[in-house]
């Protein structure tokens, strides 16, 4: 498991993994889109708009997962003084920001026919918007310091402070009375979703995960190269 903290070992494994990951992600995406557009049933209340779920839910999960990964890696970087944590932090932030943006846009496209409005100020939506702004601040911080050694540590501290938002995003639907529905799929109880809708959701989740991993690996490799050549 040393490739998770060692840049050279990561590079070696990434060279092997990159092409298969790329191909798998394309296949999974095509399969998932086929399932979600043609091979899954309409909802009895929402009609065809339920298909937005197959993009909305995976991107929301991955937005949270990316921030969790960044938090873990900033702990690794700050506490154990391993610079690979900062490399991952710098590289992964735009990926998470894009996933959050996809989640927000698809959600508001879904909200217009269902709730009758593009945006409501309930707890889930607001906390996700704050998550997006936190991602943006991380990206801007990465661009605005001159000294790299200061920048990466300050960004890691900011990521740790901003991780206060994560449980608020996750549990906002349970703590407050929101218009956004509570989680349908949870670990503790049997999922109350039909298998015919569960299947495309799982396939799309894996497809999004693979796409995110491919882009993240590419960005981490670029970051390692730019640090080796001492650019900025």
């Amino acid at each position, binding site marked *: 498991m040393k490739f998770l903290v060692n840049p050279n070992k990561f590079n070696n494994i990434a060279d092997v993994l990159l092409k298969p990951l790329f191909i798998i992600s394309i296949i999974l995406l095509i399969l998932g889109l086929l399932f979600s557009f043609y091979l899954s049933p309409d909802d009895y209340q929402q009609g065809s708009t339920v298909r937005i779920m197959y993009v909305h839910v995976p991107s929301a999960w991955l937005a949270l997962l990316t921030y969790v990964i960044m938090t873990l890696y900033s702990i690794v970087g700050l506490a154990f003084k391993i610079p690979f944590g900062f490399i991952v932090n710098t590289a992964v932030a735009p990926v998470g920001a894009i996933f959050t943006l996809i989640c927000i846009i698809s959600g508001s496209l879904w909200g217009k026919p269902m709730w009758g409005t593009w945006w409501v100020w309930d707890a889930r939506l607001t906390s996700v918007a704050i998550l997006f702004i936190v991602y943006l601040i991380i990206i801007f*911080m990465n661009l605005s310091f001159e000294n790299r050694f*200061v920048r990466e540590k300050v960004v890691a501290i900011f990521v740790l*402070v901003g991780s206060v938002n994560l449980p608020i995003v996750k549990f906002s639907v349970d703590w407050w009375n929101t218009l956004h529905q509570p989680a349908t799929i949870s670990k503790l109880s049997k999922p109350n979703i039909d298998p015919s809708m569960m299947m495309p959701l799982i396939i799309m989740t894996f497809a999004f995960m693979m796409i995110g991993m491919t882009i993240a690996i590419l960005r981490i490799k670029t970051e390692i190269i730019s640090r080796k050549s001492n650019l900025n």
Partner: protein
Amino acid sequence: MARFFLKVLFFYFREYKLNLSGFHDILTNILFFFISIFIFIFSFGPEKETLSILSIGILWTLLLLSSTLSLRKFYQEDFDNGNLILMHLNGFSYELISILKTISHFIFVQIPFLISIPIASLLLDITYDKLVLLLISFLIGSLILSCLGSISASMNLLNNRNYLLGSVIVIIFSVPAVIFSVGLINSNENYDSLINILFGILLIVFAINPWASGACLKLALQNN
């Protein structure tokens, strides 16, 4: 121990002298606060009904914005003229410096706002009951704002390219404080639970502040 308290006393005496000679800075902040109230009233009209709905929100927004204006006074001046490193050499740890600075910011920057709130509430036609709640919520909320300001000001000590980032960090983390403060003022019962929530936020932020700003101060002083 006595030497330590003497040092802290001299620290606050120095802060008092500095803030007294630069008091026009703080007065400019308060001027910004009042002029923005005028602009708000000119932009949506002076009717009492709209004022009674919007006044609390306006006051809290402007207090937040005008207290973020003074963020660069927090550490930057002492950092530039080398006083921070002198304090550290005299036996103040980075964490202690951040705690002392936060309390000094609360005393010398936020207390003048606290005094000017009753005058502003006359302009905005706020009733006495709401004024008391506003003062309580701002007394707790301004300490939260000071702690957040300490974190973001110490983060941006070596940031020469993007000055506005510090204000954005304070504003984005002060969202829960603003939500619960305005909720406290507009609610008609269960004040206790909302005040408890505000106190909880204050304790969390006060606990995070020394670690985060101490680490950032150390980074900035070592890499300057």
